Every structure is written in C-alpha cells, then in structure tokens.
C-alpha cells in the first residue's frame, strides 16, 4: 500500500521534528510546514491525505486553514488541530467549521498517532 501523505504545520521546530519522527515511524510520509501560509500555498498544488496543524501560527491560523479547506477548496480531507487548552472557544468554532479532531498542548505524540490513524481509517471506509 502506498504510504499516506501528511502535512504537518507546527512552528515549534523541536515539537515538529518529534511529531514527524513518530509519524514516519508509523509509516507516513510527512511534509513539515513552518506556518499556515505555507500550508495554504502547498494545498493549491497537491492535497495530502490528512493535515495536522497548530491553531496559533503566524500569517494564517489553523482556524483560517479549516475555513479555507472546507469552504474554498470544498475538500473533505481530515484535519486535526493542535492548540493550547485555553483556546476553548476557538476550538468549538473550528470543530463547527469542519475540523475533525483536536489535541490540547502539551500533546502526547502517541495520542496524536492514534487520532491520525483513526481519521485515515474513517476516510478509507467512506
């Protein structure tokens, strides 16, 4: 089976590398993005199998990204947000707008793996 492509947008390089490392161990191909704007640009050429994105990013927030993906590109690919727990209102908005899942920081890479796997599986069934 062809490996699934993931886009990972996280501006903390250490956390991003750690997540990439763990996701690759799990068999995914991971492309790192430094901020939301880069993700947006990337999406104009290819769509990944899933997106994992921090909410608070310079230029283009995770929420804006959900909006762009669901309402402009009309894409249903899974998107999982990472956020500080205090951003409750934002999270609710993001979920309403069509985000699939979210994880509160500090995040556990193992938990992220489980959630990414679940979303990819759901995608395959439907």
């Amino acid at each position, binding site marked *: 089976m062809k490996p699934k492509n993931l886009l990972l947008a996280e501006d*903390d390089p250490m*956390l991003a*590398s750690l997540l990439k490392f763990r996701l690759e161990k799990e068999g995914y191909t991971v492309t790192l993005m430094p901020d939301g704007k880069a993700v947006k640009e990337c999406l104009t050429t290819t769509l990944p199998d899933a997106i994992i994105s921090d909410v608070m990013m310079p230029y283009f927030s995770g929420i804006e990204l959900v909006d762009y993906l669901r309402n402009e590109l009309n894409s249903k690919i899974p998107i999982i947000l990472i956020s500080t727990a205090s951003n409750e209102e934002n999270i609710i908005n993001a979920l309403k707008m069509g985000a699939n899942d979210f994880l509160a920081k*500090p995040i556990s890479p193992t938990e992220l793996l489980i959630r990414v796997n679940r979303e990819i599986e759901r995608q395959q069934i439907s």
Partner: protein
Amino acid sequence: MLAFLLKQTLKNEVLDLDTRELLMHLSKLENGLDRYSFTELNTNEANRLKKSFESFKNGLEEKVFGMPTPEPVEVSLKNKKVKSKPLEDHSMIAKVSHEIRTPLNGIVGFIDLLKETELSPKQQELIKALDTASGNLTDIINELLEFSKLASGHETFENVPFNLKNLITEVAFLCETLITDSQVELSVHLDKNLPEQLLGDPSKLSQILLNLLGNAVKFVEKGKISLEAVLKSDQQNRVYVEFLVADTGIGIANDKLQRIFESYKQAEDDTQLKYGGSGLGLSIVKELVDRMDGLIAVKSALGAGSTFKVTLPFEKTKKQDIALPKRPGKSVPRSLKHAKILVFEDNVLNQQLMENRLKSWGCKPFITDNGLYGLQLLENHEFDLVLMDLRMPKMNGFQITECIRQNRHDHIRTVPIIALTADFSIADKEYCKRIGITDYILKPYNADELQRTMQELIAEREKQSEREISQINIGQASALINLNLLYEECMGEKDTLTELIQLFKKNMYEFIGNVRMHLTNNDSRGIGFAVHKIKSSLKMLEATTLAQICSKLTEASDAAAYEALEKYYKQFLNEYPKVEEAIDIELNKL
C-alpha cells in the same frame, strides 16, 4: 468655553467669590493648555490629558444642569433676593465639589506623569504653570468641600486614641515643607505635662493646626512662626489642651478682627488677590473647633503679628487601650531609594504629607484618591508597595484591596499593601490576612515605624521573588530539566533525541534574539507569540524554571508591562545557560 459655562450657570450669591476664584484658575488652565505644543507630545499622553478634561467638563455640565434647584433658574435670575436654603446649598456644594475634584485629581495625576516624560524647556515651563493652576484649583475645591461638609453637618467626628506628640511632629514637618523662604523660622514647643495618648479626632486636630499654620506661613514674609501646646486643665477623665499658633506677620486691623471667622470673608478684599486662597480656611477652623466643643480666639494688631488660641477638650485613654504593636527591631537599613509606591489617600493634607515623606526617603510616590485610576496605574507600572487609606469616597480601601488581590497578574496580586487607618479594629492580624492586607499602621503614624515596615515588606518581597526562581536551581542538573519524557517519545533512539535537542537549542537562541528585538520595538504582542512558540518544548523537557519565567512573560505581555518584560527577560537570560548545561550533562548520562 468652560469659563463661560460656569459664569452662566453657577451665578449664585453664596458662591460668588469662589466662583470667580474657580473661573480664574480654570481660564489659567485653559490658557496653559492652549499654548501647549501638543505636536511634541506623545499622542497617548495627549489623549489622556484631553480625556481627563472632557470628563471634567462633562461632569461639571451634568452637575450644573442636572442638579435639582430649589427654585426655577429664571426666577432666581430675575429676583436678586432669593432666599437660599443653607442646608441644601451646602450639600449641593459638597456634591458638586466632590464631582469636580475627581476628574481634577485625574488632571493633576496626568500632569505628574507628563512631568516624567522628556520635555523641552518651554514645555516644562508650561507644565509648571498648569501644575500650579491645577494645584490652586484643587486647594480651593477641597476647602469648599470641607467647609460645606462641615456646615451641612455631614462631617463625622472620630473618637480614637492617638499620640499627640507624633501628631504635632507631623504637623510641624508638613508646615516646614510649606515654608519656602529661609527667612521664616518655625519653632515648636510641647508642654511636658501633656499626656502622651489622648482620645479624640486626630485628623480634625491636624486640620485645625495646619490651617492656622498655613495661614501664618502665607502672611509672614520674614520672621517667626511658633506652635505651642499646653496642658490647660487636667480633670478626672478629660484634659483641656491649649494650642497657640503665633506669627510675626502683617497682622489684622482691629475692626477686621470681628469678622475674621465669618465665612467667605478675608480681612481685606484685596487680601485674596495678594495672598490667594478661598478665604474659607478660618471658617473651617472655627466650625471644627465649635463642633469639637472647643474655643477659638485671636489676638492681633496691624504690623504686630497674630496669635490664634484654640482650646480643645480630649478624653484621657486607659493605658491598655494603646498597646501599639512593637515590631522586632530588625534594623537592616535597606534603602527605599527608587521604590515605587502607590498611595491611596483622599485627604489632601495627608496626601501632601505622604508625598513629602516618601520623596524624602527617595521613593517615587504616585498618589490618588481614585480607586479605578489607581488600579489602572498598577496595571501600567510595577509598584513595590501600596499604602492604603481604608476610608475613601466611592471605592474604599477594602474594595480596592479586594480588586488588587483578585488581579490576574502575579506581580499585581502579590504587591504588599499597608493599611493606614485610625481604626483599631484593624489591629487583628487574622482579619488583615483575610482581607488581603499585608500590614497596617495606625494613624497618626510614626514616620520611623512606617519606614521600617515599608523596608521590611519590600525586602521580603524581593527575597521571595529571587527565591521563587532560584529555589529549583540549587539542585543538580536533574532538577532543572528532565530528558526522560522526550527520550521515551523518541522510542529510545538517542540520535533522534540529540537531533531534537539541537533544534531546541536553536529555538531558544532564536527566542532570545526575537524577544530582544520585540523589546526594542515595544512589541509586547510579538513577545507573547514568541513565548507561545517555545512553551511546548519547555514542557517536554520539563524545564520548570524557564517555563515559570515564560508564564510571567506571558502575563506581562498581556498587560504590555514593559518593565516587567525587561525584568523577566533578564531572568531568562540568566537562567538559560544553566539549563543548557544541565541538558548536556543529562544527555551524556543516557
């Protein structure tokens, strides 16, 4: 515009002299403002100044147009002989003066803040003019308020134990600060037979003495002023004390002496022009003395100076009433220099006294009687200590204390608060603690005691904050960070861990550089973002000390408190190398 408004609406026989006085000062303020070069002024400050004036104006309009008048305005304008109802008048004046005073204090406060900014010599001169004019206006309004409160019977008199000698010392100290000419000399004499403690109203007594001394200072250009307190009679549980305030000033002509205590009368009509003041000072004194069941008399001749004699009864205290809490004599003379002190105090005399005291100790005092304004100051400046008068109009000291203790910012919430009060019920440590007051000083306070308490609290707080940060440092590297969690997440692959650690370090260097840049640009939001970006990494490495500093940085960036940002940034710079060292040590152990 203001002046016109006042002229049109406040035309009232009783107020006439004071209205004119008010008008004069207002137009001075107005002129000063007109000439002020706002372009050279920081927009923010200019806005605040403008806002302050707006609310002053609006408050006045509201009071003047919105207040219930005993009779329709038209009638009173046509009919010159409207009978005024003294009681209503007085409470009206009290209300109006109070409403005027609040925004005026704002103006004075902002002028003070303006003075601290960089100003051209021309601007300094104009600010000084504004300062003097608003200061005079404040004095007049306060006298007016004081008098109307007294005359309307709203004023309450306390009956609390106080130290007479301390009170006289304070009064003399304040009087000294009023004397600007070295050719005037003040001497104080206290009767040895006077009891140390008395029961009565110390703040009213101070007011009487300060008014008399203030008058003397005003009318003596060269010569002597003396204050004397004598035990006149000592009965079973009551003493009569005679206070003599004498000066070698211009004196008062015999025919004018008769009306000297009448309200709104000064000896000569031109006295006001030459010496300023509302002419209410002596009326206030007379009113106060009457209400305290005392006697006042004056002896004077033109050119031969004046002597005022006030005799007042006081109750004696039972010795055990005054078990003033003695502090352990920790004489660590730590300087209070540059300590920023916020003072909540509504009594103008006390304000002035406190300001002089604090400045003489090298402190930087900020004084206000406005709870909200003070709380705003706390948000914008980092204060070392708060002095709190518990009894204040609008928001009282308890309410302000509550607001401070509930503040979301650590450095505000934990600021030491010393309550200044004449109320003995505060002398209960448990109660103080419960309401959030760190310590208390009983009024009239002893300056040494205040200084000592302030020094102790400030030193203690400094130690505390150093301790907070360094507490964990004392331990070995393993106490600073913990790599186990991250190592586990790397599935035990050391190469990955090493790579992540490299990224972490790079991230930290970037952070340090970014924050420095944001500080230079006064970009507190940028700092907030930068901190947010490194938070998860710090948590993953369990770098508790750095995480602690970072949450302080977040707080400070939310409040745009630049002094605090600088401070915590420096702490971060101090702390980071230790953490990095610890990381390397721990990494080698794996």
